[in-house]
């Protein structure tokens, strides 16, 4: 069966520090991968999506970047965090055209102080 893991689950970082959130998917190949952010009391905002290794599309201009160094690995990064980067980050995957829904990781709470 397919599983998705992301870590760390909780992170408290000072303003200006770097960020690295990692997500891996197991049990499938060539998935579509996503990073979403859920700010407090708000909905899900699509940040990045990837249809293959090295292929990253950004939905909104921001302080964050994403990379896909391997087929089932998706990394969310920042060189210098801002207070506004605080939120709940969700990694997700789907099977593309042969799939029927999107699957989410456990989420990562980021607090920038």
């Amino acid at each position: 069966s397919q599983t998705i893991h992301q870590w760390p689950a909780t992170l408290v970082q000072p303003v200006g520090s770097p960020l690295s959130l990692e997500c891996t998917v197991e049990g499938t190949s060539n998935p579509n991968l996503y990073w979403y952010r859920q700010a407090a009391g708000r909905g899900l905002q699509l940040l990045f999506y990837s249809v293959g290794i090295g292929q990253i599309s950004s939905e909104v201009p921001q302080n964050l970047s994403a990379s896909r160094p391997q087929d089932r690995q998706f990394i969310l990064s920042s060189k210098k965090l801002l207070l506004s980067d605080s939120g709940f980050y969700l990694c997700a995957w789907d099977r593309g055209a042969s799939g029927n829904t999107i699957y989410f990781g456990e989420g990562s709470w980021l607090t920038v102080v």
Partner: protein
Amino acid sequence: AQTVTQSQPEMSVQEAETVTLSCTYDTSESDYYLFWYKQPPSRQMILVIRQEAYKQQNATENRFSVNFQKAAKSFSLKISDSQLGDAAMYFCAYSNYNFNKFYFGSGTKLNVKP
């Protein structure tokens, strides 16, 4: 980009009653998918129901059913016989036909009163 709008930030329903959550979306595509997801306090996203745009028949899943109005671009969720465990945030979502983009609404918080 496609947009998904949920105009009800919060709703309440009495246990065993029926409640309807609203969702509208904007797209220029003719084939796509629509979803309702539930996010309990644990924050894990759970698929509730799925609708293919090319199907005229409304999807149902036990106590959950949708009213899909393609021309109006409306996709509401009806929860019958509401239970305390139904209390959660509910997100409406849209996916294009190729399944390479998912967009979510801002969510509706559902409270269930005993």
